[in-house]
Structure formats: structure tokens, C-alpha cells
């Protein structure tokens, strides 16, 4: 990354080979054009993403409160130590970990299975893919609301279906141990198509001749899967997994609508807890420190994501 020269050779600028434009006095140089085209976008990002984060970084060292107003006193790392040593935060971190790992693992297994099954079909592949993708395109608000209705303990359709199988009503969203499971199930329902889509892209990209060569060698199905399919799809799948992990980590809307963190605090993820500290507790300084720590985690995950992405592109 330190050597910009090697990065820019794909489209050599041939300005030097171009004769001067005839009769055009206002000819912009490529360099000027680059600045003019890139800087508006970068300025917007600086104003709307970098500046707010820097402000949050400043606030994280103070005891500022958005409602109390007044001056912000520097407390240095007090907010950070308070958060990192808080048992409450540790609990939220564990909840988040269970949620992220549970949801992403389920999505990989289901998504890859569906993609594999679809890739083995010759007819109706397009239609099947389109149908499976519907949940992913819906807004988390719609998904959250609708599952809340379906999981309702009294008149929800899920309990109605279970009832006809002789299973008693389950209080999906109002019991400590089922609420987090419900959250994982709903997230899995919405995002399995994402893994499926990417796995399918990988599976259809596997060259046919490899399978043909393998079947000439009479390799078993499992052997073919393990030695051809999986190694070729895995890099792409890894990217999908990291992407989903980041998204699941920053998820807020589904929790907000489905359970509001309850019952008790059993479904309070870190994102939701930050919101409570910031907008219900009004401890802006503490919430900023909390947020900065979350941003650090996201940055680490994003770096991993981009590293794998680079690797994939170079191959």
C-alpha cells in the first residue's frame, strides 16, 4: 500500500501522447480534473463521517451531557475505564457475541445449502434465486414488525401452527431464553439469502471441466465437493461471512422493533445499549466513549474484510 505507483498502472494516462487540443483555450489538465471530481465526495465524507467521529472522540474524554448542556469537563480516560470494567457492558458484549456467532453460523449453513441445491438444478434457477432473495430486500422495520406479529404468543401464526402439532404456546419474545433465539431466527431468515447469493455466485463460477475431469477419474461426490467446490467457493464465502458479521455487530433496528432489548436486558446488544446510554441516560460523554470502542471493533473487522477482498481480487 505504501507504493502508489504500482496501483495506478491499469489505465495509463496518455496525456503526454495527446496533441494539444486545437482551439480550446479552457482545457483542464487531468490533475485539476481529478481534484475537481474527487474532492466534493471526499469533503462530504469528511464533514458527515470523519468530523462527527472526531467530535465523538473529543466528547468521549469529557463528562458532557446533551440535555444538561453547559460546559464539558475533561475526565480523560474515566469513561473508557468505566465502560471496559462495567459488568453490564460485559454482559451486552456476551449477548452480542452469541447473537453474531449464532446468526452468522446459521446463515452460512442454510445459505450455502440452499445455494448448493439451487446450483445442482438446471431448470428454474433464476426464478428460485429471485424467490429466495425476497427477505433480504425488505426493510428491517418491515421484517421486525412482521415477525413480531407472527411470534405473538396469543394470536401469532407460529404458535397457531405449533398448536396444531400439539406443542403448547411458546412466549417467543417475552421469555428470557427464547427472545435471543427469536432474534437470531429472524436475522437468519432475513440474511440467509445474502450468503446464498454470494455462495451461488461462487458455485456457478466453478469451471465445469473440473467436475468433468473428476467424474472421468470417478471421484466420489463428497470428494468432488471437498476438493473442488469448497476450496473454490470458500474465499468468497469468507468475505460474505465477514460482511455479515460487521452488519450483525452494528445491528440496531431489528432489536429496537422486535424486543427493545427485553425481556429484562436479555436481547440488549452493544448497539442497543449505546442507544440507551446516549438517548435515555443522556450520558453523552460515556456513550461517545462506548461508540468509539465499537468503531474500533468495526475497523478491525473491516480491515480483515478488505484484506481478504484484496486477496480475492489478486488471485
Amino acid at each position: 500500500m505504501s507504493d502508489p505507483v504500482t496501483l495506478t498502472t491499469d489505465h495509463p494516462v496518455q496525456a503526454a501522447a495527446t496533441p494539444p487540443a486545437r482551439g480550446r483555450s479552457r482545457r483542464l489538465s487531468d490533475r485539476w480534473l481529478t481534484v475537481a471530481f474527487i474532492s466534493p465526495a471526499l469533503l462530504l465524507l469528511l464533514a458527515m463521517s470523519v468530523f462527527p467521529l472526531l467530535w465523538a472522540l473529543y466528547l468521549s474524554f469529557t463528562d458532557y451531557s446533551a440535555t444538561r448542556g453547559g460546559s464539558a469537563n475533561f475526565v480523560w480516560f474515566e469513561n473508557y475505564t468505566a465502560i471496559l470494567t462495567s459488568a453490564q457492558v460485559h454482559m451486552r458484549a456476551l449477548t452480542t457475541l452469541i447473537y453474531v456467532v449464532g446468526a452468522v453460523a446459521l446463515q452460512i449453513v442454510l445459505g450455502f445449502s440452499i445455494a448448493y441445491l439451487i446450483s445442482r438444478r438446471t431448470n428454474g434457477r433464476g426464478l428460485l434465486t429471485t424467490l429466495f432473495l425476497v427477505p433480504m430486500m425488505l426493510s428491517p422495520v418491515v421484517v421486525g414488525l412482521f415477525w413480531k406479529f407472527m411470534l405473538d404468543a396469543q394470536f401469532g401464526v407460529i404458535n397457531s401452527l405449533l398448536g396444531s402439532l400439539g406443542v403448547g404456546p411458546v412466549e417467543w419474545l417475552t421469555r428470557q431464553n427464547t427472545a435471543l433465539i427469536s432474534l437470531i431466527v429472524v436475522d437468519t431468515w432475513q440474511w440467509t439469502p445474502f450468503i446464498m447469493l454470494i455462495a451461488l455466485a461462487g458455485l456457478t463460477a466453478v469451471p465445469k471441466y473440473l467436475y468433468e475431469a473428476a467424474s472421468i477419474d470417478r471421484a466420489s461426490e463428497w470428494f468432488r465437493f471437498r476438493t473442488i467446490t469448497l476450496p473454490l467457493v470458500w474465499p468468497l464465502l469468507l468475505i460474505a461471512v465477514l460482511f455479515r458479521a460487521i452488519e450483525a455487530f452494528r445491528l440496531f433496528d431489528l432489536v429496537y422493533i422486535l424486543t427493545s432489548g427485553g425481556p429484562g436486558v436479555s436481547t440488549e446488544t452493544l448497539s442497543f445499549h449505546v442507544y440507551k446510554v446516549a438517548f435515555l441516560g443522556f450520558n453523552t460523554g460515556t456513550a461517545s466513549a462506548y461508540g468509539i470502542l465499537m468503531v474500533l471493533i468495526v475497523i478491525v473487522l473491516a480491515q480483515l474484510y478488505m484484506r481478504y477482498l484484496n486477496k480475492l481480487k489478486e488471485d
Partner: protein
Amino acid sequence: MAVSVDKTVSTGPARGRTSPARRTSGRGRSVLEIALLTVLAVVMLFPVLWMIETAFKENRDVYAIPAKFFNFTVTLDHFKDVFVDSTGRSSLSTAFLNSVVVAGVSTVLATVLGVPAAWAYSRFAVKAKKDQLFFILSTRFMPPVVVVIPIFLMYRQLGLIDNKLGLILIYTAFNVPFTIWMMKGFVDEVPAEYEDAAMLDGYTRLQAFWKFTLPLLLPGIAATAVFALIFSWNEFVFAIFLTSSDSVRTAPPAIAGLIGGTTVDWGLVAAASVVFALPVLVFAYLVRKHLVAGVTLGAVRR
């Protein structure tokens, strides 16, 4: 990658099996696979179908125990309630209109800012290009609930709280990284030689971009804009924290607001959700060729 696979395959076992037996087991497996796929498809689609069904049900059928799957009375009342109420136009329809304005304007802005930047990144030597591009993408990964804290304070100073312009700005900022990454892929596919040739004919670089490259990019721009539109349309976190009044609120917080009271009109929630989701599904269908790139923020391309 392919090389290593070739090697492992050529050393593979060559165990013989009688072929007729294999064929019948293959057919059995095929039936099993189709059955499995059908079950999975039903499970995945059931919630969507249930939502559509609920939107057309009368209230007493909505809350029926056990749930009614087929024999219910069809009504359009809930859809009527989405658009009109006793005072004339419902607050939901205002919210839909706000969503159209906010999503539309922010998409246009993100396209206008992002497409030229993507072209410049694709064509020219830029210092630390890769680092810049990664920085741009990483702004998109920030947790919205964290970003919204300083944005809230910033907007309070600027008077942009409960203001459509505020939402438009933040949505634009969230869509610009996506637009740049997605469009850079499309620009990379257009040979730079077209512009070089045009410049040999006496056009300036800018004219070459405008007259020759841009028309070729139009389908890509359309696909990118559709994804940006969907992101803004579906966005909830910024909308709920940065707006409050009915005249500014977009559809997602307005629909979520329907379950705030003591009794919830689930028929209305379902109808509003259907009306809200329908355009997204139509648009997503139009750009289905680019879905992989779209949902990975332009990072993964086939």
C-alpha cells in the same frame, strides 16, 4: 487457485461403481433435493405471503385463533386506511411522500458526487489510491447508532434536527461510498482507449468523459442509483433519531410508530408494510443482474 485444484483432482481415487445403480440413486437424490428446496422455499416465503394475506384480511380474521389460512373475507379497508383517514390524507401517506423526496434527492446527490469521483479513481493516478478507496468504504461500515450521537449534536447546532435536508445529507454521505465502489467497477469495464481516441480527435478530457464514456456508463449508473434508492428508502436508525414531526418523518419510523399504542392494528401494519415493500421488490427485480455487487457495496463482482 485453479491449479491447486487440478492437482488434487488428478490424484483422486478411481473407485469403480456399477453405473445403473448409480443412475437410480442419482434420480432418488434429485427428487429428495427438489423436495428439500421446496420446503426451504416455503419456509422462506411464508412470512411474506402471510404479511400479504394479513393485509387483505378483516380484523376479526387477523386475530382468529387458530389462524385462518384460506377461508377469510377479502377486504381492501386496510389499504384505504394507509392513504386516507378521517381528517383526509393520512399521516402515513405524508410519510410515504417524505420517503420519496428524501430517498430520491439523496440518491441523485450521491450519484452526482459519486460517479465523477469513481471515474477519476478509475482513470487517473491518485496518491495512495487504494488507501483512499478503503477509507471511503470504511466510512460506510460505521455503526449508525454510534454516528448518530455526534450527528445529532451537530444538527442541533445547525438547526437540521427534524428537517428533511438533514436526512438527505446523511443519506447522501452513506450512499457516496457505495456509489464510488460500485461505479468504479463499471468504469473499469469501459476501455480508457475510447477517451484517448476522442482526445486525439481534439476533444478535451472532460468532453471525452461526457460524450463517450458517460453514455456507456448509463446502465451501470441506473443500477447503482437503484441500490442507493433502496438503502435510503429502507433506512430506519437515522430517520428515527433525527426526525420527530409527522410532516418530516419518513415511512420506516412512521410504520414502526403504528405499534406504539396500547392496541395494535396489525391489518394496517401489514398493509402499510406491503405498500412500503412493493417498490423495493420491483426495483430489486430490475437490478437482479447486479445484486451480488450491490449487496456487498460494490466490493464483490462476478
